C-alpha cells in the first residue's frame, strides 16, 4: 500500500510518500503506526505521540482502530490548520 506523510510528520519521517508492505499481523491504523515507529528513529520521532497523529484512508478521515485491509493509500498528518 502507498503511504503519504504531510507537514511535520513528513519532515520527521524524511519523505513525502513510500510503498510499504506491513506483515499480516498489522491490522489497524494503530498497529500500523506502532509498526512504522519500529522501523527507525526518524519514524519513532514522527509517531512519538500517536494520539496527535491524524490518519486518512483513501482520502477519508479514519479513527485509530480502523482496519487497514484493502486500503490503497494511507496518509498520516498532524491536526489540520488551514483556512
Amino acid at each position, binding site marked *: 500500500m502507498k503511504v503519504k506523510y504531510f*507537514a511535520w510528520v513528513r519532515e520527521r519521517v524524511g519523505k513525502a510518500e513510500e510503498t510499504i508492505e506491513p506483515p499480516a499481523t498489522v491490522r489497524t491504523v494503530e498497529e500500523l503506526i506502532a509498526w512504522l515507529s519500529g522501523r527507525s528513529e526518524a519514524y519513532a520521532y514522527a509517531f512519538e505521540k500517536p494520539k496527535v497523529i491524524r490518519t486518512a484512508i483513501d*482520502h477519508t478521515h479514519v479513527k485509530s482502530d480502523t482496519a487497514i485491509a484493502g486500503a490503497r493509500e494511507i496518509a498520516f*498528518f*498532524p*491536526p*489540520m*490548520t*488551514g*483556512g
Partner: protein
Amino acid sequence: MICPVAIRIQTDDFDIAREIAVLTRSRTDIGAVVSFSGICRADEDSANVSALTLEHYPGMAEGEIKRHADEAVSRWPLNGVTVIHRVGRFVPGQNIVLVLTASQHRKAAFEAAEFLMDYLKTSAPFWKKEESATGSGWVEAHARDDEAAARWTKS
C-alpha cells in the same frame, strides 16, 4: 433550486468581485451573497509572522471541501457556493481563502459561510508553517476551532 458548487485549490490569487460576479451571473433568484476572506496576518499568538506556507493533501483536500459544501447545500437553501483555498507561500496581507455563499435571504448565506469555514479549518487537510525572526515552525491546531466546528453537529 439551482446551486452550483465551485471548489478550487490554487497558488494564484483570487479576485473577490470577479468571483461574486461569476456566482450571480444571469441569476435573478439570489438575494444575498456572503463573502469570507481569510488573509495572512503578521500577528499569530503574539509572534511576528513574516510569511506563511500552506501545504495540502491533493485530492483529499478538494474532497473534504466538496463533502462539506454538499452538506451545506443540504442544510440551507443555497443558490451557490464557491470555495477557493490557496497554497504556497504568503506574506502578511495576502489572501489565503475565500468562501462565497449565495441564497435568497441573508440568514442561510451567513450561516452556511460560517459552517464551511469552521469545517475547512478542522477537517480539510491543509497545514500552515510560519516564518518569523526566530525561525520557522508548524502552526498548532486550536481547540477553539474544534469547538467552533462541533456546534454544527446535529444532536
